[in-house]
């Protein structure tokens, strides 16, 4: 009896405790994201800081598998939408903006003066004159190279396209793949195309092409592919790249079986895991092809948005404003190993980050997002298949371009 009496008392006490907690109830903020392990840890730290500053808000982060997220976002936006969701800038967010799935957050931009602090990304976050999300990080693309492979072939780091091609011949003699890539997932090939086109025809033309304003059978596009063929036809690109994932190609570079790799800065972590150090891994900007063109670069931006079905919009906006601040972006990107978008933030000490920051802040042509973010999804898919086919069978170039042109006629109506 005494025991049950005690437990009843305990029970009442517990109930009372629950009641007091319910009085100081927290508002929850549901956040769906697709972070890899390292970024996830960085974001959890930032969220902890945010919760400490706003004790009445409880951020519930639901992390998804990276690839699965891209398809599940459509389901949860229409069915059971969170208060915050990760996505990408540029044309990639257009379907959600146009169908009214993302909330217009121009007020967050004006209230926090983000137009100034996030100036570089404002264009890619704007559709119809309104802003639809807040960018928190971006990273440069360029050529990562194995310094030992350069020593082994006895060549210098090139600055022009002609030098790059000359080097390739020497790499081939030394039994090293001049350029490696793994196009099984298609997108790594798009990085090469983007740079070929940016360097051959410039940023404006590249943006017109991805926006569907220029024909794929245009002479200038053919010029791009002609330059690209100088790399493909003699067999300077890793054979069988269509069966390789990008990590497989990364290990070729690590082992010194390949010299150069057109990649985004996120690959540095993979190279270093594989044993490369700042002494063996090098970074250079993609060499100049057409002399005198303003230099365009590629820097995909990752963003956070408020879905239209969000239940806690006020706190979501508070969170976005917090993520946009200079200090938070400094801290976040230090952990991510990427570049902060806020121009008041500090860039990490890592030499590759410094190089990327230098590269992007001096790009006088413009900053492209990436082929699959600048072009509409359907065009991106068909385009990237075409790039892959070209890198296997360069003789099919005319047929590929005609196919892309046909797709352009249908997709951009």
């Amino acid at each position, binding site marked *: 009896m005494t025991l049950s009496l005690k437990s009843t008392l305990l029970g009442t006490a517990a109930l009372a405790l629950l009641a007091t907690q319910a009085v100081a109830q927290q508002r929850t903020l549901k956040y769906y994201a697709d972070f890899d392990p390292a970024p996830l840890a960085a974001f959890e730290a930032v969220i902890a800081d945010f919760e400490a500053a706003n004790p009445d808000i409880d951020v519930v982060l639901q992390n998804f598998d990276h690839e699965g997220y891209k*398809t599940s976002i459509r389901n949860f936006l229409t069915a059971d939408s969170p208060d915050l969701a990760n996505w990408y800038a540029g044309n990639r967010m257009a379907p959600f903006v146009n169908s009214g799935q993302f909330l217009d957050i121009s007020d967050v931009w004006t209230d926090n003066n983000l137009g100034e602090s996030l100036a570089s990304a404002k264009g890619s976050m704007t559709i119809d004159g309104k802003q639809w999300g807040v960018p928190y990080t971006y990273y440069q693309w360029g050529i990562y190279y194995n310094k030992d492979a350069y020593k082994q072939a006895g060549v210098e780091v090139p600055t022009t396209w002609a030098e790059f091609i000359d080097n390739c011949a020497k790499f081939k003699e030394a039994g090293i793949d001049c350029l490696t890539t793994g196009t099984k997932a298609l997108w790594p090939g798009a990085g090469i195309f983007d740079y070929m086109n940016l360097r051959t025809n410039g940023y404006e033309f590249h943006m017109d092409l991805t926006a569907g304003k220029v024909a794929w059978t245009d002479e200038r596009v053919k010029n791009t592919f002609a330059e690209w063929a100088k790399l493909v036809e003699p067999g300077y690109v890793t054979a069988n*790249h269509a069966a390789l994932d990008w990590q497989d190609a990364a290990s070729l570079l690590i082992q010194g079986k390949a010299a150069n790799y057109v990649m985004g800065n996120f690959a540095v972590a993979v190279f270093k895991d594989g044993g490369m150090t700042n002494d063996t891994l090098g970074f250079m900007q993609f060499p100049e092809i057409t002399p005198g063109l303003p230099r365009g670069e590629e820097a995909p931006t990752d963003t956070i948005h408020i879905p239209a079905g969000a239940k806690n919009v006020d706190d979501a906006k508070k969170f976005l404003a917090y993520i946009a601040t200079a200090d938070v972006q400094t801290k976040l990107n230090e952990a991510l190993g990427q570049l902060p978008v806020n121009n008041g933030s500090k860039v990490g000490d890592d030499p590759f980050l410094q190089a990327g920051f230098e590269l992007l802040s001096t790009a006088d042509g413009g900053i492209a997002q990436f082929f699959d973010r600048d072009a509409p*999804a359907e065009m991106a898919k068909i385009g990237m*298949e*075409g790039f892959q086919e070209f890198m296997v069978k360069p003789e099919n170039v005319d047929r590929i371009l005609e196919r892309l042109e046909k797709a352009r006629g*249908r997709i951009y109506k």
Partner: protein
Amino acid sequence: MTGSATTPAIAGTQSDNRGIWKRNQRALAPWVFLAPGIFMFALYVIYPIIASMWLSFYDWDGLGAKTWLGLDNYVELLDDDAFYTSLYNNIIWLVLYMLAVPAGLFIALFLNQTVMGIRIYKSLFFFPFVISQVVVGLIFAWFYAPNFGLFYNLIEWITGTGIAVLADDRYVTYGIIAAGLWPQIAYCMILYLTGLNNVAPDQVEAARLDGAKGFRMLWHVILPQLRPATFIAIVVTVIGALRSFDLVSIMTDGGPYGSSRVLSFYMYEQALSEYGFRMGYGAAIAVVLFAIMMIFISFFIWKMVRDERGM
């Protein structure tokens, strides 16, 4: 059907002072028992089929408003290279997948003997069917992988240059079918093994007395008795070939440059994948795939009905 038609007539001749349920009990009872099944079938099979056909006349991205297109999706299909690639690959799948039936039979005959530990051998042969298709796909992808794959290195050792099967548009579909055959042969084998258990020993005995052996014995005595097993093996193999989605998705994702696509994968790509979301176009592909399947399904149903009537 004939039974249910005559019952009300008999009931009608009797005095009708019973309730409606009592009077029609024999006619209604089957429907009551069938109702849950019919309801489920209508909701999960019939309705989706009609909805897909309906959707195939629209342009819809899954989020915004639908636009009526009429037959435009089908017109576009007729002019779509990727569609013909998929169709062609589907036919290759259908033809080569059929190898699973004779191969399964052969292994079943081979294993149908009483040796020490035969059960272990049988279960080892059956093993590939038990593991998930995803795992089968991964194993074969590594098997074919350039630079470190066993098959690649073997070819390199024999011929001097390795072949990256999954990166070559000439071989990729065959490479995937080979992976698919592995579990499918095991499936056919198990079907035949159970069939062989039911082969009448007295007929085998009688045939042996008449001097039949070897291939003649197999062809004229054993195989006719295995007809039910053969029928099921062909049905599951045809269906397996037509819905060959998982292996394509795991091993190549339709690549290189879409050359290993099949219709089910192309449908998924257009309607649901990362760069797709053309629901209407995907639905149109699904309708075509459905039409192809209908040919086989109708044939199977026709044959089953015929056999049941004893014709």
